[in-house]
C-alpha cells in the first residue's frame, strides 16, 4: 500500500515526533513543525501519536492512493479535494484505491498534515522517520517528496478506528496574523543594552518570508548591544559570541537587526548570542505563523514556561482520551 505522488507540492516531507537524543552530535530533533496539528491527524485515523505523517508547506501534493486508505488532514486551513470533490478538514476520510487527493490554495498558516491509518512507513533513521533534508536522512531518501515517488503506508493498526470522527472547532489550533510568543530570556540577554532589551520585548516584529524548518526571520526596529571588547574567539560584531550550543527555539539577532527563531531543523550551535528562547509550549504557535504575522515577544519565568507545557500536555491528553 502506498501513495503515488503525482505532484509533490512545494516542500512535502515525512515527519513524526522527531529524532530525539542526537542533538549533541549536531543532528537536530526535526519532526512535525506543528506537533499538535500532526497529532490531531493521527488521532482521527486511529494511529498512535508516533506514526509518521506528511507535512505539506503552502502547496500540498497531488497523490493517488494505491489501496483503500483512511486519512485525515489537519493544520493550516485549506480546501481538501478527493476526486475533485471538496471534503472537510479535521475529519476522518475513507479513500478507495485509485482515489486522488489534492488541495486548494492555503487560506492561512503555513503547514497542513496528512495522516493515514498505519502511518507513513519509510525506514526509521536514528529512531525517527522524520526527513532532515540538510543531512539527507529520514523520510523518502532524505529529501522532500518528488513526482513519481511511491510513499509506503504501514499495515493496519490492531486497535482499529476511534469513535471520534472529527475534531471539535474548540480543539483546533488558531491561525492568527497577530501573536504573542512567550520566551525565556537568556542565555545572552545580558549583552543587550537596556534599550535593546526593551526593543526586543516591546516592539512589534513582523515575520518575513525568510522562514522555513530551520528558522524564522523577523523584521522590526532592531536591537542595541552593550559596548564591550569582544572576547577572544568571538567575531567582531557585538551579536557574536564564542561558539556555544543553541537551545531549540533560541532567538539570535545577527548584526542586531533581524531576530531569527531557530526551529526544529536548526543547527545545534554557533557564534551568535541567543538573547532569549521560545518556550517549548509556543513552538507550534511559531510554526503556524505565515509571513507578515505581527509578533510580540513576552518574557516569562521558568515556572510559567513549565505551567504552559503542562497545559499543552493536558490538552493533548484530552484529544487522546
Amino acid at each position: 500500500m502506498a501513495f503515488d505522488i503525482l505532484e509533490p507540492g512545494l516542500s512535502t516531507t515525512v515527519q513524526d515526533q522527531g529524532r530525539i537524543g542526537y542533538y549533541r552530535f549536531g543532528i537536530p530533533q526535526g519532526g512535525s513543525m506543528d506537533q499538535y496539528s500532526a497529532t490531531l491527524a493521527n488521532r482521527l485515523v486511529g494511529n498512535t501519536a508516533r506514526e509518521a505523517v506528511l507535512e505539506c508547506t503552502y502547496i500540498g501534493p497531488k497523490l493517488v492512493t494505491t489501496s483503500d486508505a483512511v486519512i485525515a488532514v489537519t493544520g493550516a486551513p485549506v480546501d481538501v479535494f478527493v476526486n475533485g470533490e471538496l471534503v472537510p478538514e479535521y475529519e476522518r476520510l475513507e479513500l478507495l484505491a485509485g482515489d486522488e487527493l489534492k488541495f486548494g490554495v492555503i487560506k492561512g498558516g503555513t503547514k497542513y498534515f496528512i495522516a493515514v491509518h498505519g502511518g507513513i512507513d519509510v525506514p526509521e533513521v536514528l529512531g525517527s522517520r522524520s526527513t532532515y533534508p540538510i543531512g539527507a536522512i529520514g523520510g523518502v531518501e532524505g529529501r522532500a517528496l518528488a513526482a513519481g515517488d511511491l510513499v509506503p503506508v504501514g499495515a493496519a493498526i490492531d486497535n482499529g478506528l476511534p469513535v471520534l470522527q472529527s475534531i471539535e472547532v474548540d480543539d483546533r489550533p488558531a491561525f492568527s496574523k497577530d501573536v504573542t510568543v512567550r520566551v525565556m530570556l537568556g542565555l545572552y540577554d545580558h549583552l543587550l543594552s537596556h534599550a535593546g532589551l526593551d526593543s526586543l520585548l516591546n516592539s512589534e516584529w513582523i515575520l518575513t518570508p525568510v522562514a522555513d524548518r530551520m528558522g524564522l526571520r523577523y523584521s522590526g526596529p532592531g536591537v542595541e548591544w552593550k559596548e564591550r571588547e569582544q572576547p577572544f574567539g568571538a567575531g567582531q560584531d557585538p551579536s557574536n559570541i564564542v561558539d556555544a550550543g543553541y537551545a531549540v527555539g533560541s532567538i539570535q539577532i545577527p548584526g542586531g537587526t533581524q531576530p531569527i527563531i531557530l526551529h526544529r531543523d536548526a543547527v545545534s550551535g554557533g557564534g551568535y548570542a541567543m538573547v532569549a528562547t521560545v518556550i517549548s509550549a509556543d513552538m507550534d504557535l511559531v510554526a503556524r505563523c505565515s509571513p507578515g504575522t505581527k509578533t510580540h515577544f513576552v518574557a516569562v519565568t521558568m515556572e510559567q514556561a513549565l505551567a504552559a507545557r503542562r497545559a499543552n500536555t493536558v490538552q493533548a491528553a484530552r484529544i487522546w482520551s
Partner: protein
Amino acid sequence: MAWNHADQSDESELMSHQIISPLPGIFYRKPGPGKEPYVNEGDMISAGQTIGLVEIMKQFSEVRAEFDGVLEKFEIDDFGVVNPGDVIAITS
C-alpha cells in the same frame, strides 16, 4: 504552479482570467538581476508560460499562465509581497 481562476464576476469580462499566487513571498517579474522581465503588460502569453517568480523559504517557484491570451495588467509590483490567493496578474 498554475492557479488561474476564471473571473466570472462580470459577464463582460467572462474571458478574463486571474493568475493567483498559491504562495506567500516576494514576487519577481525578472528571472534575475539585470535580466529582462518574463513578460510585459500587453504581451501575448501562452498556456504554461512563466510570468514571474515567487520566493519563499529560499526557493523560487515559477508562476505560469494556464491559458493563452494577453497579459493585461500586473496587480503586484516587482519585488512586491504576495499572500496565498492574491491576484498577481489579469489576462484576457
